């Protein structure tokens, strides 16, 4: 089966999903940014008491808040989060997730289980890794070098 067909039929759970970082609505922006830094993620998901996603806060908001007024870092994240979490189910197809990301211009997407609880984070990087894993020979033999021409010749 070709790569395209795999993307069309494989579920989101086949992706190398990131461990999700969640915060409560009353968490301060400063704490949320520290969580992003600690988990090396560009996004935290804001969840309600049942663990269901109600919003998200991304790197882009951090840049805007820092430029706007640094005192806002001590405000609760619910004042500054994006209220559309746009989750996908772990059983949705990867193609469906790709379309959702493309239409909504999303870089991160929250993955939920059957109970609607946020369980993982997917993103554009997950898709890159999926392509590399399912098409390994052709992808991984590509040189990691920066230069188009070598400084010195190889071999004799």
């Amino acid at each position, binding site marked *: 089966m070709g790569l395209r067909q795999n993307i069309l039929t494989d579920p989101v759970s086949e992706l190398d999903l990131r461990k999700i970082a969640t915060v409560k609505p009353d968490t301060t922006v400063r704490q949320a940014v520290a969580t992003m830094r600690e988990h090396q993620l560009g996004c935290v998901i804001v969840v309600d008491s049942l663990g269901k996603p109600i919003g998200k806060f991304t790197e882009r908001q951090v*840049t805007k808040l820092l430029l706007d007024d640094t005192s806002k870092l001590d405000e609760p994240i619910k004042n500054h989060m994006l209220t559309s979490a746009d989750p996908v189910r772990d059983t949705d197809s990867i193609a469906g997730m790709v379309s959702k990301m493309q239409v909504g211009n999303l870089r991160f997407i929250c993955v939920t289980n059957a109970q609607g609880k946020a369980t993982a984070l997917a993103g554009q990087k997950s898709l890159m890794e999926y392509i590399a894993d399912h098409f390994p020979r052709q992808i991984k033999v590509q040189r990691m070098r920066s230069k188009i021409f070598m400084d010195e010749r190889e071999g004799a």
Partner: protein
Amino acid sequence: MKRKRRAAPPGEFHDPLSNYEEPQFDDNLERSLLQDVISEVMTYQPYKTIADHATVEQAMQMMAELEIACVMVTHDDKLVGVFSERDVINKVSENFRAVKDKPISEFMTPDPIVVHESDCPAKAINQMAIGGFRHIPVLTVDERIAGMLGPQRVVKYVEKFLHES
């Protein structure tokens, strides 16, 4: 171990590629990943550059106003680094007031991995998936800046193949 090279009989041409088998691909996405070139099938413009002596705040303002995740940092029009929203989180956010007037060159990621316009899309995906780089500058063959590839643009490239019948 030495291998004896089979010489063609005198006066007869032996094609060294006579045993070459053309690669077989299951679909157009697989073929394009390896056989197309970035300049023909991927979008890598518009892009933004900023001089290495510009301040952190100026770079962040540019990124916020244009809603872009990454800028390329240049010195005499040569690429010397990239500065992204991830750098804001990791290097700037904790101490913004103290660092906002410092030059961006102190906070950028120097000597970034790049791809060239003539590379295949698979190479860009290799850098992103295996190298872990989210934004990769695209250069011309003579090392001038041609654009920037980010995950959003790669997703767009992949998505167009999903709608093929």
